[in-house]
């Protein structure tokens, strides 16, 4: 239960971090709060030669409002999002979801950008930010690019991040005053990783009726349109939507995912 003997750097600027991350003579990994990578290092599932700690870079710590969106730095912790010292444009989504991520001791260190880069299908932000239609700003030695959540999470622990790139910012669009959202995780124990996640958003101002089925052992499954909200969230419908995912062929998993989404839908329809 001890990590391999890695080297460590704690650059003070994003440019310095990206220069280190672009090295190709050593196996290098970025690290933020180390709440997912820490266990992987201890279990030796990850064996990097150099760890680049990006948590001392001020611009990755910032939260700011930019027009109709909230810009969240990659190294903002879940605890800070839970405590809410920022203009919440999401009508409570960010603080409510942050509050149910793992445990407070984990939320104090774990970061929103680290969670996305890790890309565990059961992670809260992976599914909720997909439902919200957020975008990820990726920084690399060659500059910045912006990717929608639906194009960022590609599979289990798989993202669009290329070698040398890190998540720099998350852009979360504001919800309208009439927007409603629901969120349900099926967990046997509080704070554990979800077995099935339902995240839903209705925003009439944007003509948005969105359901996201998460923790499906694949990327989040996005189901747009009003059908599921209008009584269509059945196991048969979900089997079709989850086709190709391991969850579709397992009756218990299929029922669990259907229940998670039904409960999330019930929160907005009540």
């Amino acid at each position, binding site marked *: 239960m001890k990590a391999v003997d890695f080297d*460590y750097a704690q650059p003070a600027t994003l440019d310095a971090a990206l220069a280190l991350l672009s090295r190709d003579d050593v196996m290098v990994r970025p690290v933020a709060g180390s709440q997912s990578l820490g266990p992987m290092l201890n279990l030796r599932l990850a064996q990097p030669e150099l760890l680049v700690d990006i948590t001392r870079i001020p611009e990755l710590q910032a939260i700011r409002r930019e027009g109709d969106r909230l810009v969240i730095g990659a190294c903002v912790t879940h605890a800070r999002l839970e405590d809410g010292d920022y203009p919440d444009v999401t009508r409570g989504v960010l603080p409510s979801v942050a509050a149910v991520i793992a*445990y407070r001791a984990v939320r104090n260190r774990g970061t929103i950008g680290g969670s996305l880069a890790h890309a565990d299908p059961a992670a809260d932000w992976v599914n909720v930010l997909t439902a919200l239609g957020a975008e990820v700003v990726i920084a690399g030695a060659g500059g910045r690019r912006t990717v929608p959540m639906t194009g960022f999470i590609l599979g289990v622990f798989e993202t669009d991040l290329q070698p040398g790139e890190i998540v720099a910012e998350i852009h979360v669009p504001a919800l309208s005053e009439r927007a409603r959202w629901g969120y349900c995780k099926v967990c046997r124990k509080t704070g554990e990783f979800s077995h099935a996640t339902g995240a839903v958003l209705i925003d009439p101002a944007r003509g948005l009726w969105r359901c996201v089925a998460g923790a499906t052992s694949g990327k989040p499954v996005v189901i747009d349109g009003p059908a599921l909200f209008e009584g269509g969230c059945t196991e048969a419908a979900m089997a079709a939507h989850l086709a190709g995912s391991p969850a579709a062929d397992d009756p218990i998993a299929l029922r669990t995912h259907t229940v998670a989404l039904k409960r999330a839908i019930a929160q907005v329809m009540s």
Partner: protein
Amino acid sequence: MSAHAKTISLTVNGTRVEATVPPRQHLGDFLRERELLTGTHLGCEHGVCGACTILIDGEPARSCITFAVACDGRSVTTVEGLDDDPLAAELREAFSAEHGLQCGFCTPGMLVAARDVVLRCPDADNRAIRTAMSGNLCRCTGYVGIVNAIRRVIDARNTNAG
């Protein structure tokens, strides 16, 4: 010692500490093996059991999945550092009175986490206490005594404040 050893400077229980550490050494091992602060217990070493919970800059954290090298410039408080903390004293008393421990392995982490719950959730009902404490595992008590101990401290504080 690792070829990658780094020198860090941090505060441990109020005392300035300079140390040269291998980056792979997690904070729990640093506290126990270099600072000889063996009150911090290591259970699972992958962030699940909560036994190793300590405070970094006053906030609870898992010392087994935080690397000591990442704590340069930070202030770390272990259960030993809470000896003279009034709230920790109330909690120790209540854990004893309510049978909030048996073997004691989880207790240092429980006390650190419980202190945070009392400070952060002064109106917590028993369900909220259970949820907030769910990141700390105990294999002896069944949690009833632990929840009652925290309940007792919260109630006493609210009575005194009222």
